[in-house]
């Protein structure tokens, strides 16, 4: 996408916030050509606003929203799955952290940055500006705790895709070299396993906004296995699958639309109400590795919108790739429908030795495609023979967590740096639970970060926090600047440790009164922790003016 042109779309009711976006760009960043479009419209049908305006950056204000439909998630996934729109940044705005948590299904559909509305709107503008437009823009200077050098583990946002009697499919941003995926799923209480043997790993993500797909074996308890949570009783799983059938739906049949045309997005949206799941691939074709997704999605129709080269030859390469892959399988035999095709169905069938081809010389046509899909599924209604069960996009049980080991190097109230071994793509979102729960979006670093034998050195912007959270983080950073930690701990533990250290000092120097400054430090920390539970937000304009 063209980053010199700046079009920002704000969807929501907050005029103050949307006006401030404009002020930020026009005055602070001195970019009067930036267009900020403000819409106070229902968010359920976002694709038309999107196609009408083609924004680089979209703020969606959920603060007055109570629920988000499955439909909205599907629209997001269509947009983010479209190669030309994938770089568009979606920022979520929330009234509270609790609301953000209840809408966290949006994260794997493309929302990689979250702002809990408060007094620090500018942070959301600056961070989104950095991510979206200019990665040379310096951040404000925050107190930085350096050389933290502590091991920690965090949770990488991932998505449950489907489950059957023996396997589960997860999509994630994290690639591991060994044969296990380590993480957790929130399906049911007994499903506590944290380590799953990998049956197969795919270099694609066909359902959500991730990078990798893992097919995993459910670790059933064998006769010699212990009673630990690492194993699941098979009969418990089968009973649960049976009892909870209504929460799930069977894997839908698939139809692929492989088309470089932007209009493919509009057509895919209209086709969404059809029986099959529509997968939109906005590029000329799929390579062999990408075709492996068909093992899971099992498409029944694949529709191509082809192009001609400068010699007016039709490029059948994408068709050839797909047919080559299909030949390696025994169960796949989708119908291939080819638009903008110069040869007839008969000729193509014989050339590629594949007799299920429909060739259409005209460009892609939505109505014809809809008719073909409807006709197909009228003749062949899905028999629910797939044993795979899936959840709605907006079901929170769908959120899975990949365990990621990191080595924290530095922290401010705004960003965190760490080493990690798995190769983590930029703009992945991870969750920390210490010292508070917060999200961190991995970004290209502002300045060079030294690599290390421990792995790549990453920087992540902290987000999804309230004003109170920022105060706690600030206190925490200030504390560890002065008192290095031996482990990355939470505020209660920090306070307890501070008290213990104080008691030990008192015991060691039993005639000596604790220093006033130490006492004040403890009281200050205690006071600040109590503020966390306060519902009163204090506006501290003077302290925030540097932002």
């Amino acid at each position: 996408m063209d980053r010199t042109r700046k079009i920002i779309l704000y969807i929501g009711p907050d005029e103050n916030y949307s006006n401030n976006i404009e002020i930020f760009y026009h005055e602070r960043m001195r970019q009067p050509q930036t267009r900020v479009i403000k819409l106070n419209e229902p968010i359920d049908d976002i694709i038309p606003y999107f196609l009408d305006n083609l924004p680089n950056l979209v703020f969606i204000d959920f603060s007055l929203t109570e629920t988000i439909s499955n439909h909205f998630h599907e629209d997001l996934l269509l947009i983010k799955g479209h190669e030309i729109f994938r770089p568009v940044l979606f920022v979520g705005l929330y009234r509270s952290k609790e609301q953000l948590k209840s809408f966290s299904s949006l994260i794997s559909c493309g929302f990689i940055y979250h702002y809990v509305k408060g007094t620090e709107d500018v942070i959301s503008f600056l961070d989104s500006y950095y991510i979206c437009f200019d990665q040379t823009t310096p951040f404000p200077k925050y107190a930085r705790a350096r050389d933290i050098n502590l091991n920690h583990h965090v949770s990488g946002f991932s998505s449950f895709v489907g489950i059957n009697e023996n396997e589960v499919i997860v999509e994630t941003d994290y690639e591991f070299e060994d044969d296990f995926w380590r993480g957790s799923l929130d399906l049911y209480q007994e499903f506590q396993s944290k380590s799953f043997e990998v049956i197969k790993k795919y270099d694609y993500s066909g359902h959500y906004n991730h990078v990798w797909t893992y097919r995993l074996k459910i670790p059933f308890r064998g006769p010699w296995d212990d009673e630990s949570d690492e194993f699941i009783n098979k009969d418990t799983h089968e009973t649960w699958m049976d009892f909870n059938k209504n929460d799930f739906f069977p894997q839908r049949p698939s139809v692929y639309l492989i088309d470089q045309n932007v209009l493919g997005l509009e057509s895919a949206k209209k086709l969404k109400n059809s029986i099959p799941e529509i997968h939109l691939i906005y590029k000329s074709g799929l390579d062999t590795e990408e075709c492996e997704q068909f093992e899971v999605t099992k498409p029944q129709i694949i529709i191509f919108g082809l192009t001609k080269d400068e010699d007016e030859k039709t490029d059948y390469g994408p068709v050839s790739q797909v047919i080559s892959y299909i030949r390696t399988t025994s169960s796949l035999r989708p119908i291939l429908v080819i638009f903008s095709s110069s040869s007839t169905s008969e000729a193509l069938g014989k050339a590629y030795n594949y007799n299920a081809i429909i060739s259409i010389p005209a460009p892609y046509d939505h109505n014809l495609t809809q008719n073909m899909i409807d006709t197909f599924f009228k003749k062949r209604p899905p028999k629910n023979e797939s044993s795979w069960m899936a959840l709605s996009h907006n079901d929170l049980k769908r959120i899975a967590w990949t365990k990621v080991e990191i080595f924290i190097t530095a922290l401010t109230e705004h960003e965190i740096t760490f080493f990690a071994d798995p190769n983590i793509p930029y703009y992945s979102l991870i969750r920390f639970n210490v010292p508070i729960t917060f999200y961190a979006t991995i970004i290209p670093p502002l300045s060079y970060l030294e690599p290390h034998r421990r792995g790549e050195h990453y920087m992540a912007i902290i987000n999804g926090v309230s004003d109170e959270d920022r105060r706690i983080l600030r206190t925490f950073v200030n504390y560890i600047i002065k008192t290095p930690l031996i482990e990355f701990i939470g505020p209660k533990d920090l306070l307890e440790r501070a008290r213990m250290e104080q008691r030990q000092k008192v015991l060691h120097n039993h005639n000596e009164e604790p220093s006033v400054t130490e006492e004040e430090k403890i009281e200050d920390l205690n006071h600040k922790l109590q503020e966390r539970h306060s519902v009163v937000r204090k506006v501290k304009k003077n302290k925030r003016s540097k932002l």
Partner: protein
Amino acid sequence: MNTKKGNLLIVDDETVILSRVSILLEDIADEIFTANNGQEGLEILKNKEVHCILCDINMPIMNGIEMIKEVRKTNSEIPFIFYTGHGNQSLMMEVVKYGAFDFLNKPALDNLEEVVQKGLKAGIGDNTLNGDSDFESEYKKLLDSIE
């Protein structure tokens, strides 16, 4: 009722094939022209109205691929039916990029009349059904055939 059958051009370097096929198809087309290679075929196209071309792929001087390339450069969409021998898959995949109508296997030439008749109809523009419905009916037949 359209009684025009259309004119056919047969291009093959094997004279025996040329004469045999001409005889087999004499009732299918209004006029049949023959050429021994692509170059000769192009010359005929300059001077005669042709509605369908039945063409070998491997020929000296100018082969079938080069011939279809040259014809398409003139923006002509005239249907091309190619003879292929066994194992010519890569040549077929090259040819389809330029818009092939069908392929017939040498030497059996199964369905020769049926395919050429369809090619001539397409070349004349004799579509008794409108564009979209052609595909819909073709699609329904395909669904029936693979069930």
